């Protein structure tokens, strides 16, 4: 059957070539760092953002409406629900439909965005507008929006991570206040946990690294993990905080019945962004989460009362109680945009106009990213929300450092954490040495 043979060979060639073509077609596009457009000229900007919930989309639309009222020459074409994968491709290819202004929830990618010049350097724009980012934004947020001296993003609201707890479950277990240290926390977790057969009726806390927000970096802020040494090399094997974090987490996993038992319970729980989140359903009594969970919980009209507090710290760091992990939305101008001056007007308005920042923060329950907005009397006084505003302002709250390889070093450490929690790697020192080697190789390749 020579016909079939030729056909099959052609199919094989086409099949193998398709993956290659996929790459080659992405290898176009260029960067124009210059900004020559007139910001007062009539123009249309395209703004991509990641929010997708109706209330969030409505809130950002309100902000855009206010911006357009103040800048009648600029019309903004808003595209919602954009993920970083879509963003990456659009930033590479450019074109008439590509975004001029982009936002991303993945702060870990700032290093990659700045190093590759995917996003334009904002320093000339900030200087021209007389904005000092170090004084305008919260110090940690000002820090995580730049990489190696290049500021290619600014913060647009922030996220702070803390502990949510089920007040009814606390009362039932005779617990009067949220734990402040990890030894107190471990005791509370066990008190709140109710077993049922070979599973759980209620788990005090789900400590596994996989799923939800219990990632290494979210825990890491409490421990003071540094990730990278002064020479820029991975130092997880040298940093005692990493070992302390992994040891504590594994001990809690084991005390609650081990990885298998917890993971089986986890797979039966609802997803993080749905109404069946295990904290909403009462299947877990405490949750490490961001400030948005308070709004999601109140929207879900839970049949029990909830409270929020900073996540407990290691006993030796009790004096630093109140700190937490910080993250948030970042805002930048596409390197390929030909309307950078007009785009800057939008970026400036969204990120630094106090009324715009406060109204948006109140609407979507995120932490304001500017100092002025944090002190604004118009900011919501909801006590749950205020807990996270306080965590955001704690001087020892941190974010993971930026890296030329984006958040790859965090994902590698997360993989190490997964191997450790399930007992696949028993020698923690060797595991962390291996982790450092891999991160350094990856960074060298990306550099």
């Amino acid at each position, binding site marked *: 059957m020579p016909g079939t043979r030729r056909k099959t060979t052609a*199919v094989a060639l086409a099949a193998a070539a398709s*993956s*290659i073509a*996929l790459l*080659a077609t992405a290898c176009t596009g260029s960067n124009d760092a210059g900004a020559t457009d007139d910001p007062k000229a009539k123009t249309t900007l395209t703004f991509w953002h990641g929010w997708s919930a109706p209330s969030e989309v409505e809130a950002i639309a309100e902000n855009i409406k206010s911006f357009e009222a103040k800048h009648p020459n600029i019309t903004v074409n808003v595209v919602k629900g954009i993920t970083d994968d879509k963003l990456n491709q659009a930033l590479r290819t450019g074109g008439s439909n590509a975004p001029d202004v982009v936002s991303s*929830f993945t702060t870990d990618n700032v290093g990659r965005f700045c190093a590759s010049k*995917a996003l334009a350097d904002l320093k000339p724009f900030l200087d021209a507008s007389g904005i000092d980012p170090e004084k305008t934004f919260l110090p940690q947020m000002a820090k995580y929006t730049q990489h190696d001296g290049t500021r290619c993003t600014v913060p647009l609201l922030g996220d702070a991570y803390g502990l949510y707890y089920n007040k009814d479950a606390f009362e039932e277990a005779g617990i009067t206040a949220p734990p402040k240290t990890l030894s107190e926390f471990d005791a509370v977790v066990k008190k709140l946990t109710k077993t049922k057969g070979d599973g759980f009726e209620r788990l005090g806390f789900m400590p596994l690294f996989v799923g939800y927000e219990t990632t290494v970096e979210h825990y890491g802020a409490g421990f003071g993990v540094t990730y990278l040494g002064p020479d820029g090399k991975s130092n997880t094997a040298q940093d005692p905080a990493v070992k302390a974090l992994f040891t504590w987490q594994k001990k809690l996993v084991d005390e609650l019945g081990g990885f298998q038992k917890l993971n089986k319970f986890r797979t039966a729980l609802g997803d993080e962004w749905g109404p069946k989140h295990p904290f909403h359903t009462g299947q877990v009594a405490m949750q490490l989460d961001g400030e948005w969970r308070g709004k999601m919980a109140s929207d879900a009209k839970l049949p029990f009362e909830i409270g929020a507090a900073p996540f407990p710290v290691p006993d030796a760091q009790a004096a630093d109680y109140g700190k937490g992990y910080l*993250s948030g939305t970042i805002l930048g101008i596409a390197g390929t945009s030909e309307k950078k001056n007009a785009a800057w007007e939008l970026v400036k308005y969204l990120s630094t106009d106090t009324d715009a920042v406060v109204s948006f923060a109140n609407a979507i329950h995120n932490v304001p990213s500017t100092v002025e907005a944090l002190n604004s009397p118009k900011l919501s006084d909801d006590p749950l929300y205020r807990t996270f505003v306080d965590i955001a302002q704690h001087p020892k709250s941190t974010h993971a450092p930026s890296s030329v390889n984006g958040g790859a070093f965090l994902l590698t450490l997360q993989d190490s954490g997964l191997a450790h929690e399930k007992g696949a790697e028993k020698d923690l020192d060797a595991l962390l040495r291996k982790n450092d080697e891999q991160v350094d190789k*990856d960074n060298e390749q990306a550099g």
Partner: protein
Amino acid sequence: MTTAQVSSGQTPSGRLSPGPRAKRTGGARRAERTRRALRTLGFLSPWLVGFSVFFAYPLISTVYFSFMKYDGFTAPTWVGLRNWVYVLQDSPFFWPSLRNMLWLVLVMVTCRVVFGLGIGLLITKVKAGAGLFRTLFYLPYLAPPVAATMAFVFLLNPGTGPVNTILGALGLPEPDWFSSASWSKPSLTLLALWCIGDLMVIFMASLLDVPKEQYEAAELDGAGPWQRFRYVTLPNISPIVLFAVITGVIATMQYYTEPLVAAKVASGVIGGSGQTFEPGYPDKSTLTVPHVIYNLGFQRFDTGAACVVAIVLFVLAMIFTGFLMRRRSGFMAAED
């Protein structure tokens, strides 16, 4: 030697020389050949353009970029073999993805061909309700891959899935399916078997095409069911079996959606735009070569390293296909 001989171009030594008449004929032939070649090229030009733009250029570019540091934003710079060394020696993803590919090619493709053929055989034997069975087995193939995968992750959920509930009730072991590195690929294989409709239809058509006289002759010779299958059915449908194997191998080498969705859903990292997800959960057991290409090229902005993986995939696809085609040639020759 006659005048006629000399005038025809033959030299006194007996060798032919191009005389004036012969020169004219040769020139006309060359012109005709050129015209034919141009005509052929004219007819072939759409294909040639397509081949150049969608195959030759990407292939050459891929080889070129495999020696470059290129992030898609800044100009590429020469790095020699650095990308090759990184992928083949230092990447934590490449070898696991290759091992997974080999497993899936050997196990999943074999299971699909055997199961597809088995179902095809059964349905062609069924007298009553054949249409209903054909529909039942074909319908899952129409399900979008993402929906089918999510349904399977739900069905095989270790904690609440109906499959484990039934297994538990029967006192049988309850695997962790997509949450276990040992069970994730068998789970994907089960999903592939559920979506067997395409192969079943192809096998059914080929089975119905086997001449009945050959079965009758075999029966007269006293052949049993197995002998009839071995000596009548199989030789008749062998081109289709090989087609199924080759297309199955190629599709498996490009396997992307199902393992990615299964890993995302099983790991719980499914909805947050701010969450970065690297495929392969659990323990890189569902990582495929296209995942690595995507991750390197489009998430890590490392086009050079991604090109290396793409070239390896291309070469492997060629080797697998070439090997299978050679086997096919031998098989068909023996049959002839």
